């Protein structure tokens, strides 16, 4: 690493207190699960962190019943202004306990503390703060004088942004007057369980938020439960499809935020250094385990060499390692299973003839790791150009004209996000208009805000999360 080496700068783990085992949070109490238990592992070390209760169908029943009871007896009757104050309280407690949440998230998920501390947790608090203010202003949202909540919301979230996805789901649901049963991902339950404790600190009425842990069957039982009125899911397109089939023919309102294969388009007039930083953010943020990651770089042919040289140089400075080290840029892959998928797809990339490159990068012996990787000579038919890899792997394609860039960018069943880099304003606007994607980042990438609606076109799902648009998912409109 050149003349100056980085000294280790680990964030202290002392701030978190991980219990040996966790139950389910139902009706305001932690109760034992009746479906057995599974382990949550630190993906950076493979250390077992805790035993987590596996919710059975009976537990799902109990959780839905608790949510229904709280909905009818308390939450749907409470004035919006009081609901608002609970949500503001939660936002404040998250801010107060932000370091604890950030460290715990890094330990359980493997993402760098720099991200959990500076991105995930601040956005979580901001999300609760934003929707808190909506709770007593729903009549101004454009859905009529007295928009009604739906009832009990079943929410199933992924492992890539465990606490942030929880916030995206719970904050608008509660603001609109619904109660929730939320299932965090099997590999990242710890911050959701800490959030349950935060609900108790906030003295949120029992049953308004219920957290049940488990794997796929628990999620399937929850979304299929006849007692829920709303289903919200973030995760893979395959599971989203299965959920859409499950709720077909019911009265359940459904929102899905699914996979992506975003194009990040760099024109020859783009400021190269900024574009390179944008490309780094677009694919190596959170180890590329981001549904809206810019996993296809479309670079204008005339600047291909210049851009890729700069990109390789910049990739050489990325620091991979201990997620709790404050200097770490690239953390651990969340699970052995995910690592296997990334490994399999990158092998397919090589087998299909694309050229693979990674910077010299030592991987820790323990844990799940994958070096930042780019593929050049990628053709549109390669699996690495079509399938969501969900890892720190960038596929580079080229184009000559804006029309070709649009054709290639839209040539995917997904439509979650896209990026455009150019100094020409009119071109930005025309590209933004023609890209079939729910979020377009122009001269930036991977920016999020509670007031900014997020969600996809086509097979990236439907419905929006965030801002005024995000209310619709939780109101009977």
């Amino acid at each position: 690493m050149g003349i100056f080496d980085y000294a280790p700068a680990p964030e202290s783990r002392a701030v978190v207190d991980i219990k040996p085992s966790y139950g389910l949070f139902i009706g305001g109490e932690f109760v034992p699960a009746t479906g057995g238990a599974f382990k949550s592992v630190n993906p950076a070390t493979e250390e077992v962190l805790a035993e987590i209760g596996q919710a059975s169908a009976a537990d799902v029943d109990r959780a839905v019943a608790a949510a229904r009871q709280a909905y009818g007896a308390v939450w749907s009757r409470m004035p919006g202004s009081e609901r608002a104050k609970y949500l503001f309280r939660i936002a404040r407690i998250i801010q107060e306990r932000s370091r604890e949440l950030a460290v715990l998230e890094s330990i359980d998920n493997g993402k760098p503390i720099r991200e959990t501390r500076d991105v995930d947790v601040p956005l979580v608090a901001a999300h609760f703060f934003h929707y808190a203010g909506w709770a007593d202003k729903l009549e101004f949202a454009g859905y009529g004088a007295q928009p009604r909540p739906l009832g009990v919301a079943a929410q199933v979230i992924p492992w890539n942004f465990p606490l942030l996805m929880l916030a995206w789901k719970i904050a608008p649901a509660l603001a609109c007057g619904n109660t929730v049963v939320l299932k965090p991902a099997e590999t990242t339950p710890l911050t959701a369980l800490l959030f349950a404790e935060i609900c108790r600190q906030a003295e949120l009425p029992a049953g308004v938020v219920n957290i049940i842990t488990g794997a796929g069957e628990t999620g399937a039982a929850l979304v299929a439960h006849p007692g829920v009125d709303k289903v919200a899911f973030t995760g893979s397109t395959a599971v989203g499809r299965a959920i859409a089939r499950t709720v077909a023919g019911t009265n359940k309102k459904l929102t899905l935020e699914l996979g992506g294969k975003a194009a990040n388009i760099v024109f020859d007039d783009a400021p190269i250094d900024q574009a390179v930083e944008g490309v780094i953010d677009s694919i190596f943020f959170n180890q590329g385990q981001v549904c809206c990651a810019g996993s296809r770089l479309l670079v204008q042919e005339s600047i291909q060499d210049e851009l890729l040289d700069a990109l390789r140089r910049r990739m050489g400075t990325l620091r991979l390692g201990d997620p709790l080290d404050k200097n770490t840029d690239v953390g651990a892959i969340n699970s052995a299973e995910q690592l296997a998928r990334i490994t399999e797809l990158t092998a397919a990339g090589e087998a299909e003839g694309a050229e693979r490159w990674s910077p010299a990068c030592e991987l820790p012996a323990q844990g799940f790791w994958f070096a930042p990787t780019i593929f050049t000579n990628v053709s549109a038919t390669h699996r690495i150009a079509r399938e969501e890899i969900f890892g720190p792997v960038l596929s580079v394609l080229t184009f000559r004209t804006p029309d070709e860039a649009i054709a290639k960018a839209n040539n995917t069943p997904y439509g979650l996000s896209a990026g455009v880099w150019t100094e020409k304003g009119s071109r930005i606007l025309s590209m933004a208009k023609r890209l079939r994607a729910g979020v377009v980042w122009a001269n930036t990438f991977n920016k999020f805000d509670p007031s900014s609606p997020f969600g996809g076109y086509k097979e990236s799902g439907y419905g929006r999360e965030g801002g005024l648009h995000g209310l619709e998912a939780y109101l009977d409109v």
Partner: protein
Amino acid sequence: MSEKTATKKAAATKAAAKSTPASVTATTTAPEPASAPAVRLDVRKTYKLFIGGAFPRSESGRSYQVTSADGAFLANAALASRKDARDAVAKARAAFSGWSGATAFLRGQILYRVAEMLEGRRGQFVAEIRSVEGLSEAKARAQVDAAIDRLVWYAGWTDKIGQIRSTANPVSGPFWNVSSPEPTGVVALFAPERPALLGLISVLAPAIATGNTAVLVAPDSAALPAISLAEVLATSDLPGGVVNILTGKASELGKPLAEHLDVDALDLAGIADLEFATTLEQAAAENLKRVLRPSAAPVDWTEAPGTRRLTAFLETKTVWHPVGS
């Protein structure tokens, strides 16, 4: 032609004559010269499909009899096949870029033009609805009026829906951030059987007002007003392929459209069999189509529709850009 049909037709034409449209007075009886036959033989209309701006027969060569409310023969209509449905989807897809890219003002003018053309043919539609639905003239007239008024209502929405559904988002940082709606794409619409014309317009107008293109499945019993509506659309400056109308059976066309990977959304308003609607919604999950479920309770289509059908087939796009000097 059976006696019953002749009577029915005469009733229909009489009703039409009252309302004066030139297009139907051709079939009314006039004082005849002594040497002419007592009754002039009708020139009947052939009812075909409406695909890509043209009026083809079904590729299958099939047709079916459309009968009046009391069972009398009215016409032979083309019985659309799954291949016709696929052709219609291809035309709707081809028309999407132009129609979604047209200005909202232009779309509004064209929808208003459709209303104008419909107004000019009121008598014809009143006659058709009377024969198909067996309604009194007053009720048929009320339905046609409501259908025209609904078109005018939606024509006015084209350049407003974007404003009420757009937001400038106050994000925490130096970014310009705006969300605005865009059409979903190709929508397959299953029109309710009754009211025949108002039902067709109620599902079609909102879908195309926002820039989607449509494959409209008209219930087999509504073929007459559906294909007459196609004639109206064909002469209203509506680009070919924006609306494609198939007459036939939802039970046959439902699955191919629900499964079609180039269809982006379904409006199941006309699927009365809720079990079948569930099957279609399940099939639609394959490519995550947006689905508007049918109502379990009877729908009063004369009620003010609100914006629900406009917003059902819209996507929200959010664009970020840094603010700097």
